[in-house]
């Protein structure tokens, strides 16, 4: 087993729709199989073909949960990856060369006349097309060079693997796995191209690149998982007994839905693509009332259209649905494929009036599994809609895990049912007043269990009434359920604390920034700074008392969020009356890298400005 690789950041860039995902994910998988822990994340445009996309793969022998700014190996599939789009009136970026560490590698097509503009790089010009031609020739398929153009990606990846001295076989094994069924014939060509590229590097360049990923042995003999949030969420939902899922296509939620669609036959649930999100939520509410576990998935623009249906579900005390809100850059259509944590405030009050619902925000893949699963228990136990608040970062980032542990999840809890046996039908009150606010339900089709329900204010039987006394009690009944939930939900699902209890600095954050925060406090702790992290998970009912207690004991509070206004900070102030004096905010559509956050925290610790804006540019 090799010694620690530390952290190596590999970045591949190229035009959207040109196979960059496959290239990066193939490499990430090979690394995982090789025993490394990877954290891989893609940036791409809301475009089908042509715009600049890049994929970072962070390679480590320890678990990392964030991306790095500094690049050790840059692999470019096109010129824009190197120099950016600075010829535009309003350029969007200036390429990635400036991100490469001194002594770092740049692998690129030797046909590109590349002038790095700095002399501390190791350049690896590789004749992509010529190597492809060689490979094709061996199979007598030169004529199909256009069809096989995408194999140049494999060449670039294999070349970079050679630079890093990564085991070629580990790479080609994964390539082979990727070509199943009728595509198998292409595997040999790809593998041959990889070999040629690998050889090319080994032959033409000295084998002394300082960063190396000479394969590690596998931990406990088993291949680890490479998993991202959309998969984790979907698997947890299936495990939770999902019966009915609706969706209208929208990034970044679509992948979860595509995954579920592919498995509906196997597990016997139904996925419906609706005509819009209004339909998606209302169908799901109908299904929930009918007695199945129902869900829908969307992002901000679609969620805004679900507002009405969420209020309706809550008013009628439907046992669901569970709404998966994968945040992306807003407002409005915004940045469809980019990261932001700016829907918290809206998720807390997504429609007019006052009603009960639960909002939970997992911070990593393990919590995604847990929260996606228990959300269905909550929905049925408390008879209300539950929002699981996720984001593009969680959706897209691949992380290495040894396993997904579903055994510790609580059993299914379907809440209270009314049993009609022997009682006259008139005895059943769907909205009976109870101590907990929860009224036993029946499932339509049950004899003796007929009920009525309406989005208007209603009496215990579910008929419309505008009486003042009933009104006062019904509102309180519905809201009471939240208090009960607050009592019953375990503390560590509400809040988590990482790091020393008596730290000098306390970071407060939520959701997917968790990874960068943990990595950053690791780094700072190693430098001797005593810093910890309070992660807020349950947003509604809000753990105000528990958090206040923690915050009052903390020394210097620092809020970290990926939005403009510090929404969690506002929520904490509202709920606890405590303002967090320092804020590190980022709203450029990209998640914090570890360095950006470390740098930000250091500036705050050094007495920097109260509100610090971090952007991709400044790192």
């Amino acid at each position, binding site marked *: 087993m090799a010694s620690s690789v530390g952290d190596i950041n590999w970045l591949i860039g190229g035009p959207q729709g040109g196979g960059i995902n496959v290239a990066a994910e193939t490499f990430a998988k090979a690394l995982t199989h090789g025993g490394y822990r990877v954290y891989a994340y893609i940036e791409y445009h809301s475009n089908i073909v042509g715009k600049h996309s890049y994929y970072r793969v962070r390679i480590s022998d320890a678990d990392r949960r964030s991306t790095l700014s500094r690049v050790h190996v840059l692999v470019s599939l096109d010129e824009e990856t190197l120099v950016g789009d600075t010829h535009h009136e309003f350029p969007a970026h200036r390429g990635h060369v400036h991100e490469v560490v001194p002594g770092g590698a740049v692998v690129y097509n030797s046909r590109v006349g590349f002038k790095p503009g700095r002399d501390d790089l190791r350049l690896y010009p590789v004749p992509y097309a010529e190597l492809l031609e060689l490979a094709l020739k061996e199979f007598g398929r030169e004529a199909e060079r256009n069809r096989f153009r995408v194999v140049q990606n494999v060449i670039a990846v294999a070349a970079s693997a050679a630079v890093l001295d990564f085991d070629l076989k580990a790479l080609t094994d994964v390539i082979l796995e990727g070509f199943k069924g009728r595509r198998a014939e292409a595997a040999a060509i790809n593998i041959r191209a990889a070999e040629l590229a690998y050889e090319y590097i080994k032959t033409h360049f000295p084998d002394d690149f300082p960063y190396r990923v000479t394969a590690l042995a596998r931990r406990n003999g088993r291949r680890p998982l490479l998993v991202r949030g959309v998969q984790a969420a979907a698997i947890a939902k299936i*495990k939770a*007994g999902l*019966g009915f899922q609706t969706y209208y296509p929208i990034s970044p939620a679509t992948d979860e839905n595509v995954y579920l669609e592919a498995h509906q036959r196997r597990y016997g649930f139904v996925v419906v693509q609706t005509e819009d999100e*209004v339909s998606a939520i209302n169908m799901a509410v109908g299904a929930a009332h009918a007695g*199945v576990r129902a869900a829908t998935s969307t992002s901000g623009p679609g969620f805004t259209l679900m507002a*009405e249906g969420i209020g309706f579900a809550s008013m009628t005390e439907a046992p669901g649905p569970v709404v998966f809100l994968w945040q992306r850059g807003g407002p409005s259509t915004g940045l469809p494929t980019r990261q932001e944590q700016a829907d918290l405030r809206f998720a807390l009050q997504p429609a007019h009036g006052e009603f009960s619902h639960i909002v939970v925000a997992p911070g990593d893949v393990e919590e995604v599994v847990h929260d996606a699963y228990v959300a269905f228990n909550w929905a049925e136990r408390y008879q209300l809609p539950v929002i699981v608040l996720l984001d593009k970062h969680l959706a897209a980032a691949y992380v290495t895990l040894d396993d997904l542990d579903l055994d510790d999840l609580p059993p299914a809890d379907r809440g209270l049912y009314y049993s009609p046996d022997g009682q006259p039908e008139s005895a059943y009150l769907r909205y009976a007043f109870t101590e907990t606010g929860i009224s036993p339900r029946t499932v339509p*089709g049950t004899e003796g269990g007929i009920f009525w329900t309406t989005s208007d204010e209603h009496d215990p039987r579910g008929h419309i009434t505008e009486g003042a006394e009933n009104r006062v009690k019904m509102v309180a009944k519905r809201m009471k359920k939240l208090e009960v939930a607050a009592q019953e939900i375990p503390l560590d699902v509400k809040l988590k604390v990482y790091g020393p209890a008596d730290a000098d600095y306390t970071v407060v954050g939520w959701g997917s920034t968790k990874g960068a925060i943990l990595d950053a406090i690791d780094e700072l702790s190693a430098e001797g700074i005593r810093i910890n992290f309070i992660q807020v998970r349950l947003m509604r009912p809000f753990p105000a008392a528990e958090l206040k207690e923690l915050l009052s004991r903390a020394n210097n509070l620092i809020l970290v969020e990926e939005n403009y206004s510090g929404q969690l900070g506002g929520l904490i102030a509202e709920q606890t009356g405590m303002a967090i004096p320092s804020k590190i905010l980022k709203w450029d559509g990209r998640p914090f890298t570890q360095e950006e956050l470390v740098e930000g925290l250091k500036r705050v610790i050094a007495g920097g400005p109260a509100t610090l804006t971090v952007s991709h540019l400044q790192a």
Partner: protein
Amino acid sequence: MAIELKVYELKDYRADIHSDWCPGCGDFGILAAIQQALQRLQVPPHRVAVCSGIGCSGKTPHYIRAYGFHTLHGRVLPFATGLKLANHDLTVIAVGGDGDGYGIGAGYFINAGRRNVDLTYIVFNNEVYGLTKGQAAPTLAQGAKTKSMPEENVQQAINPIALAVGAGYTFVARGFALDVKHLGDLIARAITHRGSAFIDVLQTCPTYNDIHTKEWFLGLDRPGRQSRLYRLEETGFDPVVKNPDDPEEVRVKQLAAIAKSYEWGDRIPIGVFYQVSLPTLEDRLRAKGILGEVPLARTDPFRRDVTELIEALR
């Protein structure tokens, strides 16, 4: 032990609550027709779900002894679709106003036609927004002015029958609220029809619609006092597609239905305009092995083994 054969009477479909519709409202007729149809078909009340939008019409479920869902304005079809797919053993009836269905709900009206889920959708077409005090609904003719409107209607009316055929409903009919027996028959046929059945019901609103009143429909204003309504089935009109796989027959029958839908004024057809037997969405999902015979709501999905999904990620 003898099996008790329960026979449901009309009163078994009546909820124990008073309606708050205006005296003489056509909604009473539609309510009675729904109850008659259910009784005729002997659907046990607890196997029925009546869903509605918001409006005077939206109050209907409260008056029927059956599972009752008075949902949101314009959203009854998505709701009913979800309910039906989750429990396909239920008889699902969706009702709503013309504002509800063709105005705010127009997108759902059209798109539900694409699915052919086995449910019955009944629109209470009174040409006005009843519950909000008489504004023009999408079925009110351009230039018309009811007593509650300050100006003549500047927007054109839509043609519900033509739209329903164009959208793909497999049963398309029109009824009259005050011809309860005939309407009850139509509703019974619609419920029996496998697929999305649509009935546009001409409904009198004595409070706001002083143009198309009971008297007008029944022709009491005409010299011979001859009703303006006539029954398609009495003219030999044949709305039923015999061979659903024959696109030519489908086209001819659809066009005939649409042609009929343009008749208005002195002679207004009621009855079934179009019917075709096509696989329902449930059938298609069953054919794919996605949906089983047992309704989703009665399956036990809590013992699923997801190991294979996890292993696939290694």
